[in-house]
């Protein structure tokens, strides 16, 4: 399976500084898994507002790593969360984001 992320934007932004790219990947791997866990937990506990806020925090990393398929999904979770109510396909969306992000975490750890 090919990479589920693309470092193009990050490399472009780095201006050729590979340390910056490494540092951002490190920060991503350090903070995003716990944010993802918290988001899933908030979903399971019906804390929609917290779930939305966490989705909002995860969103920039998904955009920056150009993770396909979930850039729109994370926005929908954020929107649903901020509306304060659930939605019929919310569970499917949360699970999708969790699954893909976990794959990205593994790929980045082993790159």
């Amino acid at each position, binding site marked *: 399976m090919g990479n589920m992320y693309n470092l193009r934007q990050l490399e472009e*932004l780095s201006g050729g500084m590979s340390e910056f790219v490494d540092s*951002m990947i490190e920060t*991503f791997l*350090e903070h995003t898994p716990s944010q993802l866990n918290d988001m899933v937990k908030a979903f399971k506990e019906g804390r929609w507002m917290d779930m939305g*806020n966490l989705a*909002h*925090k995860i969103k*920039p*990393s998904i955009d920056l790593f150009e993770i396909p398929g979930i850039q729109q999904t994370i926005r929908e979770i954020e929107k649903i969360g901020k509306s304060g109510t659930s939605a019929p396909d919310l569970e499917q969306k949360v699970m999708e984001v969790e699954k893909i992000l976990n794959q990205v975490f593994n790929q980045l750890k082993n790159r």
Partner: protein
Amino acid sequence: MNLFKVFLAEDDEFYGKLLRHHLSLNPDFDVELFTSGGDLFNNLYKRPDVISLDYTLPDMSGAELLRKIKKQYPEIPVIIVSGQEDITTAVNLLKEGAYDYIVKDKDTKDRLWNSIRHIRENAKLKTEIDRLREEVNLKYDFSNIKGSSPAIRSVFKLIEKAAQSNITVSIYGETGTGKELVAKAIHYNSGRKKKPFVAFNIAAIPSELIESELFGHEKGAFTGAISRRIGKFEEADGGTLFLDEIGEMELHLQAKLLRVLQEKEVVRIGSNTPIKIDCRIICATHRDLTEEVKAGKFREDLYYRLLGLPIHLPPLRDRGNDIIILAKHFADEFAKENKMDKVTITPEAQEKLMRYHWPGNVRELKAVIELAVVMSEGGKITESEINFSSSNTIQNFFNEKGTLRDFTNKIIQYYLEKHNFNVLEVAKKLDIGKSTIYRLIKNKEITINK
């Protein structure tokens, strides 16, 4: 060049690092990242040039932190970066003093960059304005009014007193004595120096335009009033309005001016709404206003309203050695401005300057000296480079020192030059013997160099 210090408060480390890196790509920015509001607040002693705050920080809200910053450091611009696209929140934050409100999306980093760049450009402009203002202050410092004669020293004392208060000042003096310079010295040494100094010369504006120039007008108030225009009183708000040649104002306008001064408010032409004004008035004239009042040309009530602290500027001819002090000052200043070598004024040239009547006062002296500097050679201004262009030559002639014989020789010399050194013609014109002229030439009392 100093780096532009940027403080970022962002609790999301990933996003914070991203913004910090992006802004740091500008080599002029020195970016410091904080993950809590408290941490940022405790570092404000470093005096950042701009602060960017995330609206939702773990220890306090962006609004709360904004209020704290503005209370202690109101001059530091604060940008709020927020995930909320809530107009009310944005408007409230802007009302509380935020410089900008940026919604978090994929363009945030570019918007933040632009906003900080604008702030930096404004800061540079402000620094430039402060520098120019300081330069102007120095230019109109008391020390730039040159002279040490008793006449000018008493003027210095009055300028100082005027600058320390808000009293209306009336300046009297012949043309060219430096009335505007004194008005500026008062303004730029007073508490109003950071506000505008607006000069308005009543003699230079057609009388039918004076009213709208002074009080302003609304759009359509009269033919040609294509847009609203504020008047000089409003323009000088908080500062000083210098009304030059007040003696030239027509009576019907004097009545309107008096009303404005009494009520401390103006009504623009074409409007009924009075506008409060706060400006100090300094007026000047070359006329004797008491005589104008007696002649019914100037309103007595306005005269007393404007009199305030009267300052009489002495004519240059009454200022003795100030003529030389000023001449040297003008010569130095002109040489410096034109990147020329410093010039000295010979004793003979100084004597010539002292003998002259100076009907155009300091302004005329400045013009004479500047021309002399241009014409000078070898770093010296000699007598021949001092040329007066005043039409008042008879007065100047009588102001010269000399014996009857000196004056006679001067008259003969003048006629010789006028008649192309034709001795016979001059002898005939002046009804003197040609041998008298030849004797004077022989004795070198007059010259026939063409």
